[in-house]
């Protein structure tokens, strides 16, 4: 919550109206409030107001041990919880100098890509509902249930997994998990083709999304965008190719890059990313090495030597980073989360000006934010 709503609002002329979009609104993006000043149908001023979900995890982390911080990390971008776990563990492992065994690395890749698929499926469904196509949501969730069932089999949880731990992963895969995963892959490939038929190339959908929200590559970089948003604007920046981590360099996949950065490009980038993630999942399933799943050198109460580091992964929302500073205690000295949704959201104060109200939902949906990450 901020004091700027009163400061920043221009003096309302008599034909201008001030509307609050949120913090409760049906387009399920979390608790976000945007104060819109509109003149007729056109938006004159937009003030995004975040902080409704601020839980102070960065301060909490200064009092929790590293294993506890993994649990805290689940709750930042709760749709991509494996990614949060992963980036925190990467940062802590870098500081402590822990080697992650090969099998654990590939299991991490597997879980990360499945989580990316689940997160993009949810985006697909909710974006469909925002635009008005109700069926896409149900179809996406039918597939998402399968992915969540897989996660439940492996770690017992459907949303906050706490599966990727310091030094490796928590538990070995159950016996039938690999078979179930192998069943899922061809089934999902067919469904992806159906999604294109249902929504992606529907003329009404194209009309609604291709004409709005265009962001050029340079502007996107200036605003600090990352992830599918940036790639849709034409910049091929993907952390998995920029600085490959956790054996990503072994897998063969492309990064889909868009052309004009409109809402449709951002949407389609994510749909294509689901294809690529499925390719990676197939490759991992094809050759998962045997071995230990937890590296050596992680104590029950780990203490990192004094130092600081930065680790980044390609999360489902963008370039998720952790700046971790340690002073030798069992808790981090400072844990800063570079949250892509937080940075992606800033552009709204400039981008929404001049758009119609009906397009606000389309634009906001296409940026794909998760408030857990924005507010931490």
């Amino acid at each position, binding site marked *: 919550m901020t004091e700027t709503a009163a400061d920043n609002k221009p003096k309302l002329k008599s034909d201008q109206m001030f509307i609050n979009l949120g913090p409760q609104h049906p387009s399920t993006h979390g608790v976000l409030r945007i104060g819109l000043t509109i003149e007729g149908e056109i938006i004159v001023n937009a003030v995004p107001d975040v902080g409704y979900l601020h839980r102070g995890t960065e*301060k909490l982390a200064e*009092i929790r041990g590293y294993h506890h911080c993994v649990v805290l990390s689940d709750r930042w971008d709760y749709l991509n919880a494996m990614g949060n776990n992963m980036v925190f563990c990467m940062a802590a492992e870098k500081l402590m100098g822990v080697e992650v065994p090969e099998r654990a690395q590939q299991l991490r890749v597997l879980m990360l890509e499945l989580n990316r698929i689940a997160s993009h499926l949810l985006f697909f469904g909710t974006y469909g509902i925002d635009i008005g196509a109700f069926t896409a949501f149900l179809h996406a969730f039918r597939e998402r249930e399968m992915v969540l069932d897989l996660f439940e089999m492996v770690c017992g949880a459907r949303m906050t997994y706490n599966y990727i731990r310091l030094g490796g992963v928590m538990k070995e895969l159950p016996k039938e998990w690999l078979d179930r995963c192998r069943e899922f892959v061809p089934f999902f490939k067919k469904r992806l083709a159906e999604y294109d038929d249902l929504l992606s190339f529907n003329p009404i959908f194209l009309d609604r999304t291709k004409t709005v929200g265009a962001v050029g590559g340079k502007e996107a970089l200036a605003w600090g965008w990352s992830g599918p948003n940036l790639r849709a604007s034409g910049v091929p920046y993907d952390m998995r190719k920029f600085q490959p981590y956790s054996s990503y360099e072994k897998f063969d996949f492309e990064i889909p890059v868009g052309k004009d950065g409109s809402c449709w490009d951002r949407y389609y980038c994510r749909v294509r990313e689901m294809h690529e993630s499925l390719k990676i999942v197939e490759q991992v399933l094809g050759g998962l090495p045997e071995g230990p799943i937890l590296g050596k050198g992680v104590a029950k109460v780990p203490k990192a030597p*004094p130092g*600081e580091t*930065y680790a980044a992964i390609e999360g489902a929302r963008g370039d998720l980073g952790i700046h971790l*500073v340690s002073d030798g*205690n069992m808790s981090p000295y400072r844990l*800063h989360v570079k949250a892509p949704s937080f*940075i992606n959201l800033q552009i709204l104060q400039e981008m929404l000006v001049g758009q119609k109200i009906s397009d606000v939902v389309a634009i906001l949906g296409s940026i794909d934010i998760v408030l857990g990450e924005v507010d*931490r």
Partner: protein
Amino acid sequence: MTTTTLDREALQAKFAEKFPEAETIGAPAEGSAPTELKGYLTVRFPDGERLLAALRWLKEDLGFAYLDMISAVDWKGPVDIDGYIRDPNPNVFLPDGATPQVQLPVANKTVAYRDAVELVYLLSHLDAKIKVCLKLDVPRDGGSAPSAIGVFKSADWQEREIFDLFGVAFLNHPNLSKILTPDFLKGHPLRKDYKHQKDRFDD
């Protein structure tokens, strides 16, 4: 403008040439502040103007088009337990007298705590696949730094967040106000000596 032959040594040489007063950090010396961002070239600047000039130089001349993050670290010392609402020992099922799971942090003698907030800027060069880290120490009370919003628009909310949580003012920022904490919260929570004031949501 963008050179793909940029690697850590070349960059270090360029910094030494352009900003001789900035201190390029390698491995931390014994007893000094552990300040290298592990794995990346770290440059510490003595004051804000030179940092801003370096940011501009990196973006326009060398092609570091992407600001990864602006972070801040309060180097006062271990965190004060009064800043927390609840008992940090998270396990309420342990019986009395058992060793708590969380040991409160204590000062480490090998770490140079100081009365400053350190700002950490991380920039990326997308073609050369290299990142560089710039650091600036800002005094804790009344410290200020120039805002990077003129160079990178993505510094906007990150600087607001640092102002909100640490109290570091950024000069020339168009809208420096609280962003994450509620309106009724006074003080800057991520400071190490922050004490929690009882508000209407505490029971």
